[in-house]
């Protein structure tokens, strides 16, 4: 029964489309209390007084707690070291310990009968601040006039360099050098479900159960164990339906720790369901880089060298200070032959919320910089924007192509499969189709290449268990926030077990079911869990074979597995399927189960190309997308429909950063647009219908040929959109070097320029 490659519809959709989902905020338990946090209105201040008097007397308030009440639990949050960690994380305490370092940092917590009362009481809590100087802009912070951590003496948290060949020195040999400063704004991930957590404590067993809207159940478990000084086995973290993650739910947060601490202290179930404002202020954000980059090419437009110096604003607290900037540095060369390269990044603290991995995690930034430079270089050489790419892409005959830069799997980035120039041509051809009306609008196209870096981050475990009813339960530590893992994982298992899909039950993200899991991030789940599932099947079937042999009083070696049936060698009518095996076993027979741990040692690289045609109103500079072609190597597509959904959704999220999104701060670190009225995200009316062209090359980096594809759309869209808009605006000579590209930002450039 071939299941891999089929667009199986998701079973959970029956629940989710009829309002029967179960998200954390939906959970109700007897005697439950709800939380609201008192959050800092200052970006940097010393807290000199907390007065809860007025709030405490409000009916329905159960208690109000400040940092002093939390005692030993007031210490920085932590979790296992990330794979690439040349630098310790700098994490906040669950409630600010004396000093606040960004607007929205939790200062105290109100426990009340419901959220209305909790919010009203939080509103009535009085906090006395001694305001301290603050800095929000990364370039200002780099000047070290205001320090986020005075004891460090500098706001520069770390400096990372990536280099290959002669590096920067090689630029001198180039016939043309293009140099530019690029800005990628601070953006907010904004899953539609704000973060939420429910914690309850059973004093009899001493066990803490936490249901969290998270991408990493074990991450939260280990983090809670550390901050609360609990033995990990005393904590169970379960993940119900989760309303989107995009990287920002892949952490332990202060609110998780406070809710868990309160559940133990109060002996009552505790719920915190964050709201949109809290999502703006207290959830990790993304991007915020400033690059000064130079690309040198020869007379024919062949790349000689790329040099980039950039700043990464990481905010005040940073769970993984280097992941994003290191990934940007690694990904800058893209899918091109690039002999000489040097990138240096300075990671800089500011008084803003943490800036951490968000969908793409460094790749959209790198792609924007490199692809913009290639556009410039094409203009400098006098060749087409597609032509310069044609001349520089890694070719099939170059593979395996090692570009000399060490990636997140601690190995040189190596392109092992694919036809990059072929992919480019496919998109160039597809975009040529279609005409535009003669309506006075300016039109332009953008065609850009990108790499999707997927997997290469540690391991996942898959455990298979044969139930008494014949259903095979599949346990993993990954966590779905919309990716449809239950369906894809069941497809993989059903395919290899040769059973119908409804005979596989997927249980994800329950820390009691597998000893460890890393969670869902870095486009790693399909590769890591997918291979783990396949690798668990063989030992699982071996165990089954032994059981069948016992029933048949035969030798396990004589039991064969064919087409979903166990057969006895040489005996034609002896056959048994898994279901029959399950019901035939004696009641006291041991559980049939097997596990495999797949270590994803090699990153998979999927290459892709986006082609966009836009129309721009030459008077108002209103932009519309007229055509959008995507080719995205996804390796083996387990479920093509779900894969397509990831690509389309990722691309629209990338268009958000490209077109609308930027969280602005004033010089004192006040965020200025913390509502969906002032922080715009993509809506349905402006987004295009994408045309997907499929060219897939199974990964050579893992046994099943799987690749991730959740981030590539986000990675590519900004560069593609900017290129197309700039092309359309050639008559005005507009240069796009920063995102988002808004009509207002175009006008700002045109104002001083020449009209066509």
């Amino acid at each position, binding site marked *: 029964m071939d299941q891999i490659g089929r667009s199986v519809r998701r079973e959970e959709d029956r629940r989710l489309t009829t309002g029967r989902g179960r998200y954390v905020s939906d959970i109700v338990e007897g005697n439950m209390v709800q939380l609201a946090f008192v959050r800092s209105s200052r970006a940097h201040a010393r807290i000199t007084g907390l007065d809860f008097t007025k709030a405490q007397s409000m009916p329905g308030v159960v208690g109000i707690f400040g940092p002093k009440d939390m005692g030993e639990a007031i210490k920085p949050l932590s979790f296992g070291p990330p794979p690439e960690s040349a630098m310790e994380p700098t994490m906040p305490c669950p409630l600010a310990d004396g000093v606040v370092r960004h607007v929205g940092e939790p200062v105290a917590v109100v426990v009340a009968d419901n959220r209305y009362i909790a919010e009203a009481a939080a509103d009535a809590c009085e906090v006395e601040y001694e305001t301290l100087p603050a800095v929000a802009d990364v370039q200002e912070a780099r000047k070290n006039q205001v320090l986020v951590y005075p004891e460090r003496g500098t706001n520069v948290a770390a400096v990372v360099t990536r280099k290959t060949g002669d590096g920067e020195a090689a630029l001198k040999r180039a016939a043309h050098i293009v140099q530019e400063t690029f800005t990628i704004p601070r953006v907010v991930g904004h899953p539609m479900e704000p973060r939420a957590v429910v914690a309850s404590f059973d004093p009899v067993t001493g066990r803490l159960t936490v249901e969290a809207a998270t991408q990493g159940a074990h991450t939260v478990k280990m983090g809670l164990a550390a901050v609360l000084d609990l033995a990990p086995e005393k904590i169970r973290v379960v993940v119900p339906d989760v309303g989107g993650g995009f990287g920002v739910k892949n952490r332990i947060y202060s609110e998780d720790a406070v809710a868990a601490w309160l559940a133990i202290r109060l002996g009552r179930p505790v719920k915190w369901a964050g709201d949109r404002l809290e999502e703006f202020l207290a959830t990790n954000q993304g991007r915020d880089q400033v690059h000064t980059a130079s690309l040198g090419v020869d007379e024919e437009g062949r790349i000689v060298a790329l040099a980039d110096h950039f700043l990464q604003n990481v905010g005040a607290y940073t769970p993984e200070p280097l992941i994003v900037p290191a990934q940007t540095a690694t990904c800058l060369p893209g899918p091109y032959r690039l002999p000489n390269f040097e990138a240096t990044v300075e990671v800089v603290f500011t008084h803003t919320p943490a800036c951490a991995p968000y969908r793409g995690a460094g790749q959209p930034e790198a792609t924007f910089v490199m692809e913009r430079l290639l556009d410039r270089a094409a203009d400098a050489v006098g060749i087409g924007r597609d032509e310069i790419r044609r001349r520089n892409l890694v070719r099939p005959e170059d593979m395996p192509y090692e570009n000399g830069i060490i990636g997140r799997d601690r190995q040189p980035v190596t392109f092992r499969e694919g036809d990059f120039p072929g992919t480019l041509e496919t998109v160039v051809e597809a975009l040529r189709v279609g005409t535009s009306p003669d309506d006075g609008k300016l039109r332009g196209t953008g065609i850009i290449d990108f790499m999707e870096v997927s997997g290469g981050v540690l391991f996942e475990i898959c455990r298979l268990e044969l139930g008494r009813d014949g259903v095979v339960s599949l346990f993993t530590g990954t966590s779905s926030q919309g990716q449809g893992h239950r369906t894809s994982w069941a497809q993989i298992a059903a395919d290899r077990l040769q059973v119908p899909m409804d005979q596989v039950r997927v249980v994800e993200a329950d820390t009691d079911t597998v000893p460890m899991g890393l969670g869902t991030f870095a486009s790693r789940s399909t590769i890591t869990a997918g291979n783990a599932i396949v690798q668990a099947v063989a030992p699982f079937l071996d165990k089954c074979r032994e059981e069948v042999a016992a029933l048949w009083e035969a030798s396990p070696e004589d039991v064969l597995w064919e087409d979903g049936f166990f057969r006895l060698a040489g005996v034609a009518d002896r056959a048994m399927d898994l279901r029959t095996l399950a019901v035939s076993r004696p009641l006291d027979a041991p559980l049939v189960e097997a596990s495999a741990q797949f270590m994803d040692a090699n990153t998979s690289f999927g290459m892709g190309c986006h082609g966009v045609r836009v129309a721009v109103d030459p008077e108002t500079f209103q932009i519309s997308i007229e055509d959008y072609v995507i080719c995205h190597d996804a390796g083996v597509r387990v479920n093509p429909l779900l894969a397509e959904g990831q690509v389309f959704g990722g691309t629209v*999220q990338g268009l958000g950063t490209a077109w609308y999104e930027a969280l602005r701060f004033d010089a004192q670190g006040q965020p200025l647009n913390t509502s969906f009225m002032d922080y715009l995200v993509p809506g349905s009316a402006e987004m295009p219908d994408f045309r997907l062209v499929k060219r897939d090359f199974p990964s050579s980096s893992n046994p099943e040929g799987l690749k991730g594809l959740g981030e590539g759309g986000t990675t590519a869209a900004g560069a593609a959109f900017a290129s197309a808009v700039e092309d359309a605006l050639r008559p005005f000579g507009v240069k796009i070097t920063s995102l988002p590209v808004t009509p207002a930002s175009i006008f700002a450039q045109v104002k001083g320029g020449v009209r066509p």
Partner: protein
Amino acid sequence: MTEISMRVNGENRTVNVEDYWLLADVLREKLGLTGTHLGCEHGVCGACSVMVDGEVVRSCLMLAVQADGTEVTTVEGLGDPDHMSPVQEGFMQEHGLQCGFCTPGLIVTATHFLKENPHPTRQEVREALSGNICRCTGYQHIVNAVLRAADEGEKKAPSPR
């Protein structure tokens, strides 16, 4: 506390509410209808859309006391897992949802829209849904889903995969 009575998904419900509670929270917390989601609580994202007396409204912008005496339809009232409405079925078949959090609001909005405009164009669907933010799907599959529901499964929807 005020006692209010509503006809919710065809059933008469009477409940005591605080005057300052939003309709969304009363549906979710007092009536257990958690299909209605709160995504922004300032009337922009559309996740909390429900029908009140046949009109689509944001239940985060309406007080529960204002719904006294009205007929309210939430996503739960449009179908159930065994009897999905054409729009719900369309969302499932076209993969018009990923995380599913914005989905109930979209389904309510789309259901109401198709009643008014049973044969829409793609752009009309896009405009009708433009007050509902989805962060996962990129909207394309949602538009497919609504068109599929409009045509009850066949003609205008993209070719079967």
